């Protein structure tokens, strides 16, 4: 099995059911310790005030951003490189591979 080339670590988390936590994002750092890619859990629908957002995700600064158009059903994670969405996937590891593939293409 080929290992990942980046240093992926758990990013922001939130409280899950009971004592558990839910990871909202995984962040990839390069050898210099700089964050260069993220995979972000897609959340939604979320109701805020009078508005309803079908799908949202956290941006680099942990602000909620609305995803338009909404991702198709089954796309639970976004792969982001340098603030750009480069792919989406149902599972976090799949999104990680999308992000790594995008980095490889730009390298």
């Amino acid at each position: 099995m080929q290992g990942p080339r980046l240093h992926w670590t758990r990013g922001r988390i939130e409280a899950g059911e009971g004592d558990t936590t839910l990871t909202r994002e995984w962040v990839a750092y390069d050898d210099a310790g700089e964050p260069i890619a993220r995979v972000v859990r897609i959340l939604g629908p979320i109701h805020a005030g009078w508005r309803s957002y079908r799908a949202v995700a956290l941006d680099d600064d942990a602000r909620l951003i609305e995803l338009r158009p909404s991702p198709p059903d089954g796309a639970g994670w976004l792969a982001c490189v340098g603030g750009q969405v480069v792919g989406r996937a149902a599972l976090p590891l799949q999104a990680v591979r999308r992000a790594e593939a995008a980095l490889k293409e730009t390298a």
Partner: protein
Amino acid sequence: MTASSLDKIRNIGITAHIDAGKTTTTERILYYTGVSHRIGEVHDGNTTTDYMDQERERGITITSAAVTCEWKDHRINIIDTPGHIDFNIEVNRSLRVLDGAVFIIEGVAGVQPQSETNWRLADRYNVPRIIFINKLDRTGADFYRAFDTLKEKLDIVALPLQLPIGIEDQFLGVVDLVEMKAIVWEGGELGAKFHDEEIPADLAEKAKEYRQTLLDTALSVDDAAMEEYFDKGDVSVETLKRCIKAGTISGAFRPVLCGTAFKNKGVQPLLDAVLDYLPSPVDVPGIAVAAEEGQEESDESERRRIKADPDAPFAGLAFKIINDKYGTLTFVRVYAGTLKSGDTVLNTTREGRERVGRMFQMHADKRAEIKEVSAGDIAAFVGLKDTGTGDTLASADDPVVLERMAFPVPVIDISVEPKTKDSVEKMTIGLQKLAGEDPSLRLKTDQESGQTILSGMGELHLEIIIDRLRREYGVEANIGAPQVAYRETISRPHTEIYTHKKQTGGSGQFAEVKIVFEPLERNGGVVFENQVVGGSVPREYIPAVEKGIKVQADTGVLAGFPTVDFKYTLVDGKYHDVDSSALAFEIAAKACFREGMKKASPIILEPIMDVEVTTPQDHVGDVVGDLNRRRGMIQTQDAAGSTIMVRAHVPLKEMFGYISDLRSMTKGRASFTMQFHHYDPVPRNIADEIMSRSA
């Protein structure tokens, strides 16, 4: 039993569509775990779990049987369930008390109707489950096609843990995607000998691809495992197994294994998977207590749960009753506490006390006496006088009522009478005992003819009951032709006012009710609402109104069938200080129902069956044409190898005797299964026929 030994128990069920290989798989499990020293075969009529005469003669499972075995220092309590829909109550009650299940799917046909029905039942009870794609040695078997039907028909995330090596008569073993090795069975010794080897070169690439899917899916339920993966580029077998178990219990995905039980390949890894991925009694959140009045049945999150703890007050659920020559055996799943023979417990469902005589661990029809049961156990109690299926037995220290069981509604009736007059009492006792064992069997007396009417789930169900009546109770009975269990309902709202008045001399009777009758959706049941304000109907008479409607609803206004799926709202009424009584209001409610229903556009409903016919390709035209003639609506036609599976919705009325027509039409090459699907209004001409017959 200690908490540490509780995690070495697995209470599992084996369930599937008819003939998918449940009993065959159970036989291999008993052989490999050393419980039996030979392998019984369904076609030879010598399996352990099919112990009833009828089961051995017909080669089908009729009643669920409990067996216990040991595997790798764990105790596995297994319930082998029937596949035929007519005995679905057995699956229902087994899934209700089990911690996990193995769903066996046929490698040729994939997911079949009964698998779907049982799957939904398991969903209802949140039963963690693993899937075994069986019969891969059969001609036409295709693991990948069967796997696709899991996603298509069950709408699940199915996760292969194995891939087959070879197929049909070339099926040799499996690729284990967790440990990335091949497991190959050697010939002889009934499959007990197998060895590990390198994954065959032609499967290496495919195995790699599926292992990545396994990692992607399994690791997503455990962040620590993800970190391990990012750290090392892979995860340990222990970590992967922990993730698979977590996902299996939460239902995030369903692990899939494969093999052929009949050819003795794949069963030992299945047993390993039962230990590795299905929960022990301490791994599940515990059974919920019953919903309190006003609480939604479906909302379990708010309800207290009883955890598996041998030191807690006793709580158990009676899930099955059988009567044999030694008396009544009540099967109980123990959820908490410890109980010794001779102890007294409360039946909190019926608010009575029960003394437990002897206790047994069951092994199909054989029993071993035990002196004590505790949390996690399944045992049979002797000596319970007034405990029925679904009742809770609990300690007086914590008299909980556990979540109730739901039972299916019978769709077919037959009249039954003893051949000789002196057998009347014996027949009544026999049928009452059989109905006590089987909650899907109902017994009633026709008010007009005085005949005993037996209602069940299908022709086979009732045929077996009559046969058991003869063999076990010595009663020869004449039976009438099967009748469809029609229902009545209304199709538009109507408000009816009825005054019951008898005030001419002597003590009088007076009651007036104003009731709004409204149709509900199918399966809406009968719903009552009281909207009376200002005491126009005094509170003490409201139950009498409810009782009157309930009694009258059993005899519908069109043809005397039970009326269902309607709501009635008592909105107003009048009473008399002296002449009103509960009886007067009950009479008024009955008459109001009779009058009101006639004006609410009543209709007759008939059971529609989900029929699946498996036929060779060259007979598919005849089969479809015949189903159309039977008022069937074709749903799908799918090819599976050289056969076609035709699925249709057909009224039950048109399906009596179908098996002989199908056999003659296809020269005996086609087979079919059917199960109740829904009730639909009958066409006008047939409604007229039914009404004229009942008149």
